[in-house]
């Protein structure tokens, strides 16, 4: 194995690109935690659903991969809102264990329904973007990854702007900080929760459309991305928006650089090792978080 500077540079670039997507995938999970102190353990499966939607639009409908945003984003908002309304809202006041187990149940249902409908096949798309590359010296940037990175950054920025600058965004943040105070200020907390869950899920719709050009789809794809999201949110500090973004990049870099210098899928072990180290020394996350 040779650690050429080119290889390292290449893996850093790839890591940043992928890290952006990781950040986008995690930000919704963090938002939902911040607002209602719930970890959606079906988060990865929501992404999987979005990826199937995007896949079929591209592979069967002949859509441009990025045009699928127009469907995946509202579809995931709807999925999140419906699932919140139907299953999570009724048990909001219950012990956190009940909410955890409920979402674990949802993840099993979604994963295995996907198995029923789509079999265990790994589906990939070949779009016009798939093979496009930019070369900067010895370093190659895959265009779909670059688009995904830019798209993720843009979405995260939009979400941040929305939370900081709009009335509804402020209401969401108020509900996150103090539910009672928010209620007193006339914020309809139930509506905010629904909205937050919807938005948190909708970000996965965006992510799916951005990823479909270069990432495969399968019933268990959510397992992997769900875990990445858990690691990222803990690393960034649960409920910490900016921390989550930075942590996404860190994990992207760890995975990518790790893959370049370690054999097999040991880079994944590196990611988890990082996770454990953070727990050991900074359990509140690298950038502080909101505890239950």
């Amino acid at each position: 194995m040779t650690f050429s500077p080119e290889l390292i540079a290449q893996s850093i670039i790839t890591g940043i690109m992928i890290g952006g997507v990781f950040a986008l995938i995690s930000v919704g999970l963090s938002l939902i935690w911040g607002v209602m102190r719930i970890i959606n353990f079906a988060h990865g499966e929501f992404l999987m659903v979005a990826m199937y939607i995007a896949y079929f639009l591209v592979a069967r409908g002949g859509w441009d991969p990025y045009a699928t945003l127009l469907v995946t984003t509202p579809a995931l908002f709807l999925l999140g809102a419906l699932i919140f309304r139907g299953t999570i809202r009724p048990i909001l006041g219950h012990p956190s264990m009940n909410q955890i187990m409920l979402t674990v149940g949802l993840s099993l249902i979604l994963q295995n329904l996907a198995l029923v409908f789509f079999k265990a096949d790994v589906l990939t798309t070949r779009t016009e973007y798939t093979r496009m590359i930019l070369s900067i010296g010895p370093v190659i940037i895959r265009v779909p990854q670059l688009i995904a990175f830019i798209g993720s950054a843009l979405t995260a920025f939009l979400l941040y702007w929305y939370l900081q600058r709009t009335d509804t965004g402020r209401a969401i943040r108020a509900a996150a900080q103090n539910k009672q105070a928010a209620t007193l200020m006339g914020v309809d907390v139930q509506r905010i929760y629904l909205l937050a869950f919807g938005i948190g899920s909708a970000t996965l719709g965006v992510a799916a459309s951005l990823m479909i050009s270069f990432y495969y789809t399968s019933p268990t794809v959510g397992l992997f991305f769900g875990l990445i999201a858990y690691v990222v949110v803990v690393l960034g500090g649960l409920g910490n928006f900016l921390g989550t973004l930075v942590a996404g990049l860190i994990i992207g870099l760890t995975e990518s650089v790790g893959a370049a210098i370690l054999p097999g899928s040991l880079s994944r072990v590196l990611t988890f090792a990082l996770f454990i180290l953070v727990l050991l020394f900074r359990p509140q996350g690298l950038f502080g978080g909101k505890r239950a």
Partner: protein
Amino acid sequence: MKLRWNVVAPLALLVVLAGLPLFATEYMLHIGVLVLLAAYLATGWNILGGYAGQHSLGHSLFLGIGAYTSTYLFAQIGLTPWIGMWVGALFAAIVGWFVGYLCFRYGLRGPYFALVTIALAEAMVYLVTNLNALGGAEGLDVRWVGHNPALMQFEGKTAYYYIILIMTALLLFGVQRYSRRRFGYQMIAVRENEDAAEALGVDTLAVRIRALVISAVVTALGGVFFAQYYTYINPRNVFGEGPSVQMLLFAIVGGLGTVWGPAIGAILLVPIAEFARSSLGNTFSGAHLLLYGVVLVLVMLFMPNGIVGLVQTLERRRRGGRA
């Protein structure tokens, strides 16, 4: 009366179960082993999840440690699993202590603890997949040496059935006994109100860690049985999310923090799941997991205290109605 019922019913059940191999088919015995193993593992999970109130989503971590330790030791140095199981239990205890200390020291619990445990178990999947010494993704075989009780290998299923029956009976007996002792009360106190427990002299950190270590040891011993029974293990099927979810599912469906709940959950669900798997498995491989998911969601929505909890509530209502 109450006390006698508590003793007689389990003993009667034990006698019936012990007599089962006399007239059961191999397939029935196989189902029996699956039910008992599930009951055993769920009961082990329940020590930490039900009594001490710390919900691990990655208990397969300990299942895998047990299974891999005994299998590896047998393959490499021919150590009998009867001894290997205790080595596995020791490893599980050490890992359990470490995980518990890491998490509970800073008060990581609830969703946080769930996240950490799931991540640790998943990390092991990837780690073991990349370790050629442990067979990588292919996993390890327990080499068949013929019927040899000293090496925990048996012709037919009867002996396995009795082993897991004894393990489960001992575990249930232990839980029944210790849940009514000092440590049992301390676990419940920690679960119910940590500050109050601490104020009353309970070392809440130590109690949590101890519950985790005991639960880890029990689970690891179950993992050894798992390996011997199936004679094959791989990273996904022992460290993966499947075993973790099943352990907690049966405990939750039956009733968290109750002696019999996890066993009842396993008795009810495993046969149905096996039926689903064997009848639909060809066309639809996730049938039993889909069923588990639906059950988990419904139980959380409509009877979060599980079957035993529901019975207790009805009982109380009935008594209350009469008074």
